[in-house]
């Protein structure tokens, strides 16, 4: 992808919220940077999937949605979760550290952060695991005749799972209000998209289901916002699902244990020039000083969250059996 140096300062419909969206991206970036630190300090176990470099996708998308809509998220889901309506950084950090005050009372962890009260139906440890569920969520909306939509996130690797095919076909024949948002960060773990999918653009696979498919610059908040807006309009009108492919890049390794032998430092550096935060800040004509200030306040917010999480109690082993059945 060509490197954008000077982009238009016309932020169109995002004019008012532009600054807020920047701050959301900074909050996500900082959350994950600190999460990584905590991880290195051994304050959490398990694994962790960072979306650093992909913040524009999460922030641009949620800006186009509204409260009451549904989110089905992925294993690399911190960003979408933080960008979602009424997200509570404290509860997120607490869950990341496995505390009783976490969104899932420490039972879920990084890969399963959810908040059903806001229709955030959770990150998912299974690649493509949210896609079949979206058919059911979308169908429930159809039956209730509300104007909700189901926003379903997945990666480039997930689009080769059979469930992708079954679900998009069903959503299309029944015109379900589902938005399939494929965050194409170029790799599925070590597998480059060119090697894993027999198609040059994932969005083209929409044609198999007679649904619109569009590919956008996933590092451009405005581009993502506009694509999702169009899909939302169709969905709320009862015109059915849309497949959106957002081109972006995973800056960090797949997970902690990734030596990244499958890609070069140069490739990473090239993509990092597309830093969605830097690009957005430029379009906002922010000075470095202003940007640093925002970054600083984000850091403070995250430090508060860490303090809250660390002060929170561990779940008690006594009621370990709770919550299996309602």
């Amino acid at each position: 992808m060509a490197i954008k140096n000077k982009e238009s300062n016309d932020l169109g419909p995002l004019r008012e919220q532009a600054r807020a969206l920047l701050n959301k991206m900074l909050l996500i970036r900082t959350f994950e940077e600190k999460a990584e630190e905590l991880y290195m300090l051994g304050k959490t176990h398990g694994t962790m999937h960072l979306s650093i470099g992909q913040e524009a996708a999460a922030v641009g998308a949620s800006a186009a949605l509204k409260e009451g809509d549904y989110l089905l998220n992925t294993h690399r889901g911190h960003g979408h979760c933080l960008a979602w309506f009424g997200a509570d950084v404290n509860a997120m950090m607490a869950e990341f550290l496995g505390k009783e005050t976490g969104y899932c009372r420490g039972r879920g962890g990084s890969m399963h952060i959810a908040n059903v009260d806001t229709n955030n139906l959770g990150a998912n440890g299974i690649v493509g695991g949210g896609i079949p569920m979206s058919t059911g969520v979308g169908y429930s909306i159809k039956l209730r005749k509300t104007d909700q939509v189901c926003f379903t996130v997945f990666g480039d690797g997930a689009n080769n799972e059979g469930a992708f095919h079954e679900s998009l076909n069903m959503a299309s024949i029944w015109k379900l209000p589902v938005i399939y948002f494929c965050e194409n960060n170029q790799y599925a773990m070590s597998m480059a998209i060119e090697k894993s999918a027999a198609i040059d653009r994932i969005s083209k696979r929409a044609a198999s289901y007679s649904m619109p498919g569009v590919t956008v610059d996933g590092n451009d908040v405005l581009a993502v916002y506009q694509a999702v807006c169009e899909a939302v309009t169709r969905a709320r009108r009862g015109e059915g699902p849309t497949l959106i492919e957002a081109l972006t890049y995973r800056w960090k390794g797949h997970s902690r244990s990734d030596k990244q032998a499958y890609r070069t430092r140069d490739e990473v550096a090239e993509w990092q020039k597309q830093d969605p935060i830097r690009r957005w800040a430029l379009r906002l004509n922010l000075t470095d000083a202003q940007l640093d200030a925002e970054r600083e306040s984000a850091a403070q917010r995250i430090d508060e969250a860490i303090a809250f999480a660390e002060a929170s109690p561990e779940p008690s082993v006594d009621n370990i059996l709770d919550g299996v059945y309602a």
Partner: protein
Amino acid sequence: MRELTYVEALKEALRQKMQSDERVFLFGEDIGVYGGAFGVTAGLIQEFGEDRVRDTPISEAAIAGMCVGAAVAGMRPVGEIQFMDFVTLSMEQLVLQGAKIRFMFGGKATVPFVLRMPAGSGTGAAAQHSESLENWFVHVPGLKVVMPSNPYDAKGLLMAAIDDPNPVIFIEHKLLYKMKGPVPEAPYTVPISQTKIARVGTHVSVVATSIMVVRALEAADVLAKEGIELEVIDPRTLSPLDDQPIIESVKKTGKALVVHEACQTGGFGGEVVARIASSEAFDYLEAPIKRLAGLDIPIPYNRNLERATVPQVENIVTEARKLAQGKY
């Protein structure tokens, strides 16, 4: 009392639930105009329309996804898998999502769906249309597993399953569909996780599931003529299992035979035996605990082979008699 077939009883449960709760809807392959492979949903699309009685493409993973997604989103979905064998294509959504979501989310979500499916052999449908996989689901915390053995339980358990706030795997049996029995017209429920003593006896406790309950009762009639009284126990819900009545029964009889159609190795019978062998009933045991189950082979097509693969009345008679007479 009015008699209905097992199919009619199931249909009545679905109809009454759809009438009383608009969150309930049905979906599956050929459940609409076709009425379902075994006729359970026949007529319902005419009554409730295609939005609530939805024919799906042949996509079992997405069918399971509809169960989970619609349930989390506040509906009461009731899906159908045309033959239990095909649920092998649905396991990820059922086991990794549906069964775990509530616990994984800290007990803050509910996933109330029912997935119906016919199990079992006896129709000559061969190895890929005759599975009895109930113990896979019993081995998954978060799921409930129900297997009615007669029309009365079929209606009552299905209504209870739809009311239940948890995911329920509802396993029917192809050979029971035409079975007739008394079924009240008014809505009623048979509680989930309530084991039933199907016949009181004194000599041998026979724990049987699904169609094996019918065969065990026939075997009991045969042996009664010989003065051997079987106590036939029908768990009805395999998970969570109400095992106390089983343990009490074995304390009384001192002898236990567990019967199911699924192949023996790794099956539900092992769970029942283990519950007995680790309980206070152990001290009352007068004989080894025996299992009588399907052979460890795929279901063969040929009629004679198929019949020889799963327990028949005469096999139950033989095994129970041996136990009663202390010959083993």
